[in-house]
């Protein structure tokens, strides 16, 4: 085997490399596990630099999506990447981009996180694809992810629709050897000529919506002809329809135990109607293996429940969580040896805040400051500091969605809670907290917003944060009284002073912002190293 044209890449990196080779002009994204490495790869790629592919981080998924759509309007290819819940943030733009359609190829990458390794839920992005009525591609392995990105751009330009690429954590964060195809140039600047087609006034939107509906039979036909939807022959009256990465687990079991079960692999949607119908008619019992929600199991079973289809809904496979070779072995009737138990002596080792992390000193100050008040509720948000909900601090009471700390604290203040306290990270604040702050200012709500500013997007590995150095100005600009924009440095030596500042602001009957400012210890080490290297 010749290795010269091969690279060992994470699934996420394979998607990134494929997009570069397919001739994108830009990638837009907000960091989020397990999607972050796509944009990071492009950001660090000499090939991207040479080709002038733009790749800096966006403030959130919605701004990222709209910018990608704008690049497509201008005729160039663009990619927008996010974690599954990020698509909720971008959903308005996403749904309506199916109505406008696209010009230059637009590929939307949603990285789903079944089993919630690093997320609040395990929503299945394929549902969004169906909702928007656009093509969805779901690779089963890293090479297919690479190949599919090129096909997705072609399909997007052919059908003038965005194409959703769905990858799960396990594919995104697993390395494999990738064989690349040829690089192709970017599209020239070539803006849309039918400008009215992009103005979604009701009269135009109705026309566009009909056009989207009219495209559906062609999308189904393309799925039926897709090289990614294939059948593996076998014998017997039992069969499997395996979607995306579930195909790997099925094949692992089939090859290990030398089974001869027919498999229909589906990696391009809408469902290939002809293929599925012909396959389903031939067998009496069909296991539906899907990573994520039982989306197509429900569909194939139908409202009245066709028992021939088995899967997550009837317990043949677990209802929740990531699939595994063992889950598939069981569903396919293979007896596997009982695995060894984890000895009782093994203690849990949950993730925790780093030694020397500024959030630690902040939580200590908040806990101490709240001692004199009747309750200890602190609205939290999404980032490393969510770990402040766990011992030893037990400071944080909520974690729902990006920016919710601000607006939930406001709602609780409206209900009469005093003090109403929120902790939000710097990057989360610029992602979705600023608009909530404006609501609070307009209402004069008695709330204390603590921005824990570590000058980075820490949890995803230290990406640049959109508002670094601008927080005081942002808060002033929104109308927070300058006397109630306070900055503290969360260090042990400042503890008593910080407690005093927090209490002063808790007692203030209006909007106050406390900026707790200290660099992330992880990025601090990186910066020091870089500086030392530059001096060498």
């Amino acid at each position, binding site marked *: 085997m010749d290795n010269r044209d091969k690279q060992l890449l994470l699934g996420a990196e394979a998607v990134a490399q494929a997009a570069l080779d397919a001739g994108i002009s830009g990638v837009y994204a907000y960091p989020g596990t397990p999607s972050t490495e796509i944009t990071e790869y492009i950001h660090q790629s000499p090939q991207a630099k040479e080709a002038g592919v733009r790749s800096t981080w966006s403030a959130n998924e919605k701004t990222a999506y709209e910018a990608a759509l704008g690049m497509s309007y201008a005729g160039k290819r663009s990619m927008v990447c996010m974690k599954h819940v990020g698509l909720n943030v971008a959903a308005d733009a996403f749904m309506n981009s199916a109505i406008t359609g696209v010009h230059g190829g637009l590929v939307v990458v949603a990285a789903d996180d079944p089993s919630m390794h690093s997320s609040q839920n395990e929503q299945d992005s394929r549902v969004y694809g169906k909702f928007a009525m656009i093509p969805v591609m779901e690779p089963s392995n890293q090479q297919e992810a690479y190949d599919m990105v090129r096909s997705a751009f072609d399909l997007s330009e052919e059908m003038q629709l965005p194409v959703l690429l769905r990858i799960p954590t396990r594919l995104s964060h697993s390395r494999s050897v990738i064989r690349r195809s040829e690089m192709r140039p970017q599209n020239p600047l070539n803006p849309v000529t039918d400008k009215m087609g992009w103005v979604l006034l009701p009269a135009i939107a109705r026309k566009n919506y009909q056009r989207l509906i009219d495209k559906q039979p062609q999308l189904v036909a393309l799925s039926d002809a897709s090289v990614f939807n294939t059948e593996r022959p076998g014998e017997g009256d039992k069969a499997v329809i395996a979607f995306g990465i579930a195909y790997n687990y099925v094949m*692992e079991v089939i090859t290990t135990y030398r089974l001869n079960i027919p498999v229909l692999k589906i990696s391009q949607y809408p469902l290939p109607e002809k293929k599925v119908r012909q396959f389903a008619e031939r067998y009496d019992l069909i296991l539906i293996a899907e990573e994520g929600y039982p989306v197509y199991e429900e569909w194939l079973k139908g409202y009245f429940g066709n028992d021939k289809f088995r899967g997550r809904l009837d317990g043949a496979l677990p209802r929740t969580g990531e699939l595994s070779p063992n889950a598939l072995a069981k569903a396919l009737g293979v007896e596997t040896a009982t695995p060894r138990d984890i000895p009782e002596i093994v203690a849990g080792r949950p993730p925790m805040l780093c030694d020397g992390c500024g959030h630690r000193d902040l939580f200590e100050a908040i806990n101490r400051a709240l001692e004199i008040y009747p309750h200890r509720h602190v609205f939290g948000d999404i980032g490393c500091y969510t770990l402040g909900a766990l011992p030893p601090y037990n400071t944080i009471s909520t974690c729902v969605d990006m920016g919710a700390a601000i607006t939930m604290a406001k709602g609780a203040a409206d209900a009469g809670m005093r003090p109403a306290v929120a902790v939000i990270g710097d990057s989360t604040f610029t992602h979705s907290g600023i608009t909530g702050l404006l609501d609070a200012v307009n209402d004069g709500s008695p709330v204390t917003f603590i921005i824990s500013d570590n000058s980075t997007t820490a949890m995803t590995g230290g990406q640049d944060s959109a508002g670094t150095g601008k927080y005081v100005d942002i808060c002033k600009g929104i109308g927070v009284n300058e006397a109630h924009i306070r900055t503290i440095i969360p260090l042990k030596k400042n503890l008593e002073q910080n407690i005093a500042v927090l209490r002063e602001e808790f007692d203030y009957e209006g909007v106050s912002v406390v900026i707790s400012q200290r660099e992330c210890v992880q990025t601090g080490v990186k910066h020091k190293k870089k500086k030392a290297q530059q001096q060498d």
Partner: protein
Amino acid sequence: MQKNIIISGVGGQGILTMAAIIDLAAMNLGLHVKQAEVHGMSQRGGAVESHLRISSEEIYSDLIPQGKADVILSLEPMEALRYLPFLSPEGVIITAKEPYKNIPNYPDETELLKTIEKTTAHVLVEAALLARQAGSPKTYNIVMLGAAAPYLDIAPTELEQAITHYFFPKGEAVVNMNLQAFRLGLSNNPN
């Protein structure tokens, strides 16, 4: 051939470096490689593992099935035991002896090592000591890679080439120190 290896430890101990070196050596031999990693929240001082599979045939699952790992290669004794459901009946645990204590309820060390000894075939390594002998505590993970080398079905010379390639950007001194660490780990092996 097929080898299923679980590399385990605590976030920040250098698991991904070990995995990258084995990956590189396997790829250079023209083998198929799959290596699942943990990114994101769990990396913050929590238990982390990598599922590494190398094979002369196509590999399907990114995850090693339970009961199918040939080796658990651990940078820490308690983390070696956490992945026991994945170890095959003939499997071997290769672990550093030094505990990584960042939790208040870390178990008794002697009991821990006893549990490993009575559980399965094992190689216990004084990794911190050997790393210091090699020239830096940082080479701890490469010492462990050396200790695991006889169980990976990859010739030590191939792994040494991969180490050289991996550390090349950091200069000759770093390369040599890591080669030394690898050899100390390798010669520590009782077999």
